[in-house]
């Protein structure tokens, strides 16, 4: 045995050894924060690959990129025909909306697919924060949604000849990111229902259709009955689409800021709702033994 390998085997840790202590012990709160951040990002990314059904190139391009682009074109041409609103209204609104498919279904899959694999029990045995685990899962879907929105907006604008001021681009990106994030938390809220109800996919399907109708993306809010507008105001995308339209029209960030703020508020509301529902249904599952009974 050579000397270095002897040394290596002498310091090799035994199988069930405690972790070696750190040299500089960072502040406890600081370490906890880093760990939580890691759980959200690293954990969220692995969970995305584990639970999202549409990650194959074919599914991704077909379902999430090409499909929504044709939907955008459909409404834009319909709009031209009916002369309800101009191209910008349809292109920008629909581009923001395209994020919703990936986000709503992704958020639903992030919880409901655990049932499919029978992994939920093992996840719930984790001593770590449910909030960090499940919020972390939303991040990749929101990023996914943002990517889709950017691609659709670019393609739509090029195909239909819409000019957008370059100065509006950072703001537009922000609006689409806010919409995607809010939509991801909305999807997570629906997914949380999947802990309690077997047929949660019905809810997600209805939700996607409702977003098309109620967010004012294709039917201007003025043309909807009052209660629909009220519901729409509580849905993700509604305010992000409005902000994006203002920005694309060159109104500037200040004009778009209130709508942007509202979108973030809606997103925060769903983020809180998701955590509360997950908590309630987890407690209930322990009482009713509903996890594996479904």
């Amino acid at each position, binding site marked *: 045995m050579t000397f270095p390998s002897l040394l290596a085997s002498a310091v090799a*840790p035994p*199988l*069930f050894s405690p*972790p070696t202590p750190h040299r500089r012990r960072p502040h406890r709160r600081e370490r906890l924060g880093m*760990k939580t951040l*890691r*759980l959200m990002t*690293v*954990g969220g990314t*692995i*969970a995305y*690959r*584990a*639970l999202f059904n549409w990650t194959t190139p074919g599914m991704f391009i077909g379902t999430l990129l090409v499909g929504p682009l044709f939907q955008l074109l459909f409404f834009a041409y319909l709009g031209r025909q009916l002369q309800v609103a101009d191209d910008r209204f349809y292109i920008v609104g629909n581009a923001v909306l395209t994020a919703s498919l990936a986000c709503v279904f992704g958020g639903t899959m992030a919880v409901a697919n655990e049932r499919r*694999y*029978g*992994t939920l*029990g*093992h*996840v*719930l*045995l*984790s*001593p*770590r924060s449910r909030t960090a*685990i499940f919020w972390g899962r939303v991040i990749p879907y929101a990023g996914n949604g943002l990517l889709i929105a950017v691609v659709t907006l670019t393609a739509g604008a090029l195909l239909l000849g819409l000019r957008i001021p370059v100065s509006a681009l950072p703001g537009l990106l922000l609006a689409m990111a806010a919409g995607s994030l809010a939509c991801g938390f909305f999807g997570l809220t629906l997914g949380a229902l999947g802990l309690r109800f077997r047929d949660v996919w019905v809810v997600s399907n209805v939700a996607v259709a409702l977003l098309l109708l109620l967010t004012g993306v294709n039917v201007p809010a003025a043309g909807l009955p009052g209660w629909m507008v009220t519901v729409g105001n509580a849905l993700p995308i509604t305010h992000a689409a409005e902000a994006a339209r203002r920005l694309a029209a060159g109104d500037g960030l200040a004009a778009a800021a209130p709508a942007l703020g509202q979108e973030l508020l809606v997103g925060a509301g769903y983020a809180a709702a998701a955590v509360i529902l997950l908590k309630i249904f987890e407690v209930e599952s*322990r*009482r*009713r*033994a509903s*996890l594996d*009974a479904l």
Partner: protein
Amino acid sequence: MGSEYAIEAEDLRRTYRARTGWLRPRRTEVEAVRGVSFTVGRGELFGLLGPNGAGKTTTIKLLNTLLIPTSGMARVCGHDVEKETREVRRRIGYVFGGDRGLYDRLSALDNLRYFAELYGVAPRDQKRRIAELLDLVGLAGREGERVEGYSRGMRQRLHIARGLLHAPDVLFLDEPSIGVDPVAARELRRTVADLASTGTTVLLTTHYMAEADELCDRIAVIADGQIQALGTPAELRRRADGRRVVEVEAYGVPESAVDAVRDLPGVRETAVEARGALQLLTVHSDAHVDVQSDVLRELAGIRLGRVDSREPTLEDAYVAIVSAS
């Protein structure tokens, strides 16, 4: 730290309520666990044996916080399983036999990486720990493959690796050797014994009596949600003292013949187990009566294989305990 016991259960009860039917709902209630009390010392290897539906898995789920007891109390390392869930979860590992419970679309490595995050393995230890465990369960070299292509035994090995990720103080093993080949099962037994000898407390359920006999310091036999017997394997074996066992291999034994054997003087229990084409008839009798010739007379005209008369084993003791309940 806290308690001298790793596991304490006091009069644990759990009732499942289910509603079936939608238009005319019917309520059904199953009392799965009915007053179970026991303690497991630190570093002890404790077995839970019992027939299907006896309440073993339910008992484990009560102890590992997945279910709340209907009544009664349990503590793991001194922490209440109902209220101090986080403290309990930090200290326990759970291995559950079966094909499910893994992310099929991910590789074994990514499955372990994810659960290492969830179970709080420090980031700088994760890589080493996962490599060790892959090696331990014999999946090293295959860890990059998607789990959907894994055989049943490979999945089971991955379950075991996951349960050990965070080096838990208390390990719940619910039929860990199911679907694992004999050589791997032997390695698994050695791993479990090693874990117990290095201070891990293990609660094991199994249907393999030899496994329980070899591994467990103490065994509880549970049937109908209640503990029927509790003791060391040697103590339990003594339950079958004063008995003799006759085993007959037969082809096509009618129910009437079994009943006739059951009614023979000196016979205590008779069990029939189908083994492919043949049936294995196990007859327990008082040790001082030789029932073999009487049994063979009742089976006259039936094609027979091997006939054997022997001392009782743990399995026989188990059969005696369960059929007496």
